[in-house]
């Protein structure tokens, strides 16, 4: 029985590992410092087709910028939802909040992308822009972030909250002086996981924020931006161009390493929190 279960579970570990190794194997010939630091202008100056060449710096910074903006928008809202859930919600309201978050989490990201296209890009006339992408990404990561912060706050012992209140601390003082110091590592873990999620979303920003070429750095919040995720998508479409395909693999390796860095930091933080 034990061997049977291990055989069933094995693909769950082996497949991602195989994918990771395959990506690294494919990307290896193109991976170099020049891949990240090269400039668009220099490559265009050589008369080579843009995009199939190196210079991922602008795509990386575009992705990181959108991720940071999305997290800055989502974190205060998620924290408010978690505090409402912990402090004021009745049992029924708590169930409703959790169910709603689950429903929001199960909506396919492309649907969010479509909503963003209609509401933000067309109706509000933001156009394809960094702001539209960040807002849509923040909506996508909100349920995950809220759930993580709710669980982090739930791990603060009830007795500590009671002790704080019985010393005459107000709810706000209790949050600032007891809950946040006790739950900071759990909250930070949640933020890091949400960042990793924002960094790996492609479909929603494809409609709302990104362009393939002609943009080095967004001039304002309402300018389009380039991103690593959509860069891979566009390059992969150029299947006949060997150079484009190799750069796509290299971009995928860079994106993976960014997501892995965030996930590993979150994992280490969780280990630290459990050891306390």
């Amino acid at each position, binding site marked *: 029985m034990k061997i049977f279960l291990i055989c069933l579970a094995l693909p769950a570990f082996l497949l991602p590992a195989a994918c990771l190794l395959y990506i690294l194997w494919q990307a290896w010939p193109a991976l170099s410092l020049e891949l990240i630091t090269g400039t668009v202008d220099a490559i265009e100056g050589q008369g080579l087709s843009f995009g199939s060449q190196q210079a991922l710096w602008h795509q990386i910074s575009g992705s990181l910028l959108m991720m940071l903006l999305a997290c800055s928008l989502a974190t205060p809202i998620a924290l408010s939802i978690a505090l409402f859930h912990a402090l004021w919600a009745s049992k029924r309201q708590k169930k409703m909040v959790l169910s709603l978050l689950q429903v929001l989490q199960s909506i396919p990201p492309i649907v969010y992308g479509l909503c963003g296209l209609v509401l933000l890009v067309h109706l509000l006339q933001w156009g394809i822009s960094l702001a539209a992408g960040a807002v849509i990404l923040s909506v996508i990561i909100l349920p995950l972030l809220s759930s993580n912060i709710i669980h982090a706050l739930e791990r603060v012992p009830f007795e500590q909250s009671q002790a704080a*209140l019985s*010393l005459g*601390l107000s709810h706000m003082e209790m949050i600032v002086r007891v809950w946040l110091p006790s739950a900071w590592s759990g909250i930070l873990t949640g933020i890091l996981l949400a960042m990793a999620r924002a960094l790996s979303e492609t479909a929603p920003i494809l409609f709302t924020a990104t362009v393939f070429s002609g943009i080095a750095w967004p001039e304002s919040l309402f300018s389009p931006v380039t991103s690593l995720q959509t860069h891979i998508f566009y390059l992969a479409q150029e299947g006949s161009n060997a150079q484009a395909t190799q750069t796509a693999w290299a971009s995928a390796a860079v994106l993976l390493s960014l997501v892995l860095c965030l996930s590993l930091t979150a994992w280490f933080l969780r280990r630290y929190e459990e050891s306390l």
Partner: protein
Amino acid sequence: MSHIQSQARPQPNQESPSFETITQPSIEIHQLSLILSDKTILHDVSLQIANTGITTLIGPSGAGKSSLLRCFNMLYDHWSGDIKINQQNIKQWQGGGDSLRQHIGLIAQKPSVFPASIYENVIFGLSRKQRKQNQDSWVEQCLIQAALWDEVKDRLQSPACTLSVGQQQRLCLARALALRPSILLLDEPTASLDPRSKQLIENVLQTLAKHIPMLCVTHDLEQAQRLQGEVIFMCDGKIIETGHSSDFFQNPNKLETREFLQWAVCECPSD
């Protein structure tokens, strides 16, 4: 304005801070009823609490003893009736529940220290205004009163979680005392402690009870006798009988009290 409200808040900057300056308040409960989730927890409870010594609340689990304490410091605030301290209804307390709770210390069954140093834990309840010069002597005074000073004086900056459970409970007591409470509520304060720590806490409480009235919930009937104060027996949210510990355990008047005491002796001979 009542005496308690007009009395100075904790003044760590005062010369030689002392607990003996606290004046004992009069405490009355009149027709207190509490309903939680459609269940009556307290039903028309009326009593007067001695303004010195330790008043002990005994009774079976679910009798409403701990709920009564939580009504007292407004952690439960949807009760009906009156709780008066020096003739003032606590529902009309100036500054609301947060201000009231600074006057009413609560020691819970399970010691709960904050993730900070021992020193920080003692002054945790003090506001920035109250944290002034001479704070160190105030911390020392509180720790001495809680019989913890000798054990921690060399490591005040160590994390409070490094203390033993018994020491943590005394730290919680010192933390409550730092606010100069007018009343101390004790919810089974020794239930999670070993016999030595239990004895230490009982000694501390008996010393403090000369200056601060206390209301103590306990399941330990021997402890209720040792504390030598008024005893209140509660059952099903009602007060069944009250009396001084010297008479109460020897000559209980009511049938329910006799049954409970007999049952407690049979079921928990070690208690």
